[in-house]
């Protein structure tokens, strides 16, 4: 019996090994190495710059930097802009496509397409739309005697231009999750609410929303993490400009690491970013636990 248990454990370890090796090679080792780099002065381009241990200097530089604080502010601003609109639109569309109306199945499938496109391609599609001289948006507006507008090169519009592209791509994600939650709701509370003479809005606000709230929180949380990491669309559309209007945290990390080649500072900024995400996750689970206790 002990032999069989030992043999099973060995087989288990053998089968686990490839996954562990891949995980170690692609995630754990790079993370350990990034941690090591974050305490060093390491300039990849300037081979003459001494590569030495600098203690917490990289972290101190980041935290004291107004540039870093600015990128953090822009990141949260963009997160608020995209998440709020995605939530309202996503829930609204989900309510629509879960109605028993003709064509809703096809509509639901078509609405998922943006989510399946690579963010770089999404960025390029919107670049063609926004491009000031040759873009479709200004072209069509010109028929109304409007424009041309500098959508992605104006400090007033650039962040919204990115937000719109992100909203277009990720609203279907909220819609899909919400629609799944809506179709699984029990019909009895709705029937009871209708019999009590509640309006459609009251039914939604007092019956539907409380029931799908945990799902919405999960969806918003996942989107918040994604919004925190947003990079591709910004890189294609504005590269952080004009000025530093659209420079988010991931752009800051990219610039430190691959424009200035200060790998130590870039690694330290990545860890600060990781800490912020961990704090967000902790807050999220605490909020979920509170929900569970209240229920």
């Amino acid at each position, binding site marked *: 019996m002990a032999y069989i248990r030992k043999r099973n454990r060995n087989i288990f370890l053998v089968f686990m090994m490839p996954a562990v090796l891949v995980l170690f090679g692609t995630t754990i080792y790079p993370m350990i190495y990034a941690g090591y780099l974050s305490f060093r002065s390491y300039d*990849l*381009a*300037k*081979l*003459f*710059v001494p590569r030495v241990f600098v203690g917490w200097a990289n972290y101190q530089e980041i935290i004291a930097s107004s540039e870093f604080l600015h990128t953090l502010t822009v990141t949260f601003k963009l997160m608020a802009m995209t998440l709020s609109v995605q939530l309202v639109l996503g829930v609204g569309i989900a309510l629509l496509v879960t109605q028993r109306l003709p064509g809703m199945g096809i509509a639901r499938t078509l609405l998922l397409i943006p989510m399946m496109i690579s963010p770089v391609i999404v960025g390029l599609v919107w670049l063609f739309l926004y491009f*000031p*001289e040759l873009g479709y948006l200004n072209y069509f507006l010109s028929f109304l005697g409007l424009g*041309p*507008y*500098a959508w*992605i*090169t*104006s*400090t007033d519009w650039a962040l919204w231009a990115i937000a719109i592209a992100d909203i277009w791509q990720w609203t279907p994600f909220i819609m899909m999750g919400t629609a799944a939650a809506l179709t699984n709701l029990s019909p009895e509370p709705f029937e009871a609410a209708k019999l009590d003479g509640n309006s459609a809005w009251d039914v939604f606000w007092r019956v539907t929303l409380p029931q799908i709230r945990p799902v919405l929180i999960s969806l918003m949380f996942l989107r918040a993490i994604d919004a925190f990491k947003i990079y591709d669309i910004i890189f294609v559309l504005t*590269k*952080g*400009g*004009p*000025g*530093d*209007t659209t420079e988010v945290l991931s752009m800051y990390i990219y*610039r430190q690491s*691959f*424009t*200035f*080649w200060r790998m130590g500072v870039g690694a330290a900024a990545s860890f600060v970013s990781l800490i912020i995400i961990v704090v967000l996750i902790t807050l999220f689970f605490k909020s979920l636990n509170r929900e569970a206790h209240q229920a």
Partner: protein
Amino acid sequence: MKHFKAVALASTVSLALAGTAWSGEFDGIELKMLAIGDTSVTRLAPIVGEFEELTGAKVQIDQFPYPGLIDKIVIEASANTPSYQLMWVDSPWVGVLGESGALQDLTEWVKRDAAEIHLDDIIPIQLQENTWQGKLLAFPASGMIWHVNYRKDLFENADEQAAFKAKYGYDLAPAKTWDQFIDIAEFFTRKAGETLAGKTLEKDFYGNAQAYSRVAGAITHDFFPIMRSFGGQYWDSETGLCAIDREPGLKAAEVMKKLVPFNPPDYLGLMWDIRTGYMERGEVAQSGYWSVRTVRLTNPNEAVLPTIGEAGYQPSPTGDGGPMETMTGALSFGINSKASDREKEAAWAFIKWGTSRDMMRRFAEEGNGVSMFHKSILSDPDLQAKYPYYKVLLETQETAQRRIFHPFYADVEEIFGVELNKYMAGETESAQEALTNGCTKINTRLKVFNQDMRLRWIADPKAEIFN
């Protein structure tokens, strides 16, 4: 007849080179070049097969956009096993590549082959552009100056001349000062429906297009030449620290700010190619830029302007209207220092072939001019008639100034790119604040190094090839 001349010249080049010791000398060698997709390379790339026929060495040129190219070169330079033996080098990069030991010193080869490469015929500043601490690290493939292109047809229009004189009180002519440049930009900025040279405009017309984008520091590529035209320097000669925030820098930033209303509405996103595109389509009255793209203004296959008007060429304006030392630059070919000796020899043979005077003349004859760097080509009356900007290129380079070549150039370009772009966007209140922010950030990085090293980095000893 033109075709016959080109073929004859190509045959002469091939025969001349075939007569050297190269024939089959590099059989089995494969060279890869990390390069830009610009005229200094695009003219050469389709004919590299001729080099293989001559020498046996196979050459593959991988072309990338300018933004990000230095990143690839830096990664290549830091690798122990090179994938690329040849590298396209923008002259400001020689500092970082030179101090890192990434490029092969070409000094002895150039001295050895001086007669073969017609060293005396090359404009000296183009060679100096490629030196680091007196060592020649790359060889010019295209010689540039920063100058002004303008709509000659509009400047010579009698109605426009009269209107300009009435408004500004002096004759309409290519600007000699930045104040005149701003006046001209203002004068020619018109809305759709207004008249320009007797014709009703179907779309807005702009007085100027400059690079204002922060991407890859594009704005600095116009800001620095303007700063230099006010007599500015990048570095303090006593400390080796940033001096860009001094008066000439402030004046240059203010000139660019004053030009904003006369630029296209997407001015904050104007990269080099987008800005030159406005000129090539004939949609702006004037634009200052690097001559490497000026070549396109003479070719109807590459620009609309030759079909609807005519381009004029002028040295950069100055602060006081006096003659200035034009800002120059070189787009060059270098050799990876980690390549094998045999690969280096083959790479040098390729550079000599691809940048030779005969090859450059062949490009010019075929109508595919690059921005030239041989005195005999630039002064050729037939070619000057064909490419009128050759005269400006030749004359201005006699007293040209070298571009920035500091090992921290990429930092300067990126930091000032963002700071200047913020100022132009109205995010930063004053030019002083923008430039001081930039200098503070650069100095923080430079102060890690001792003063002797900082001063060595800004020293520009004469290229040893001239000794």
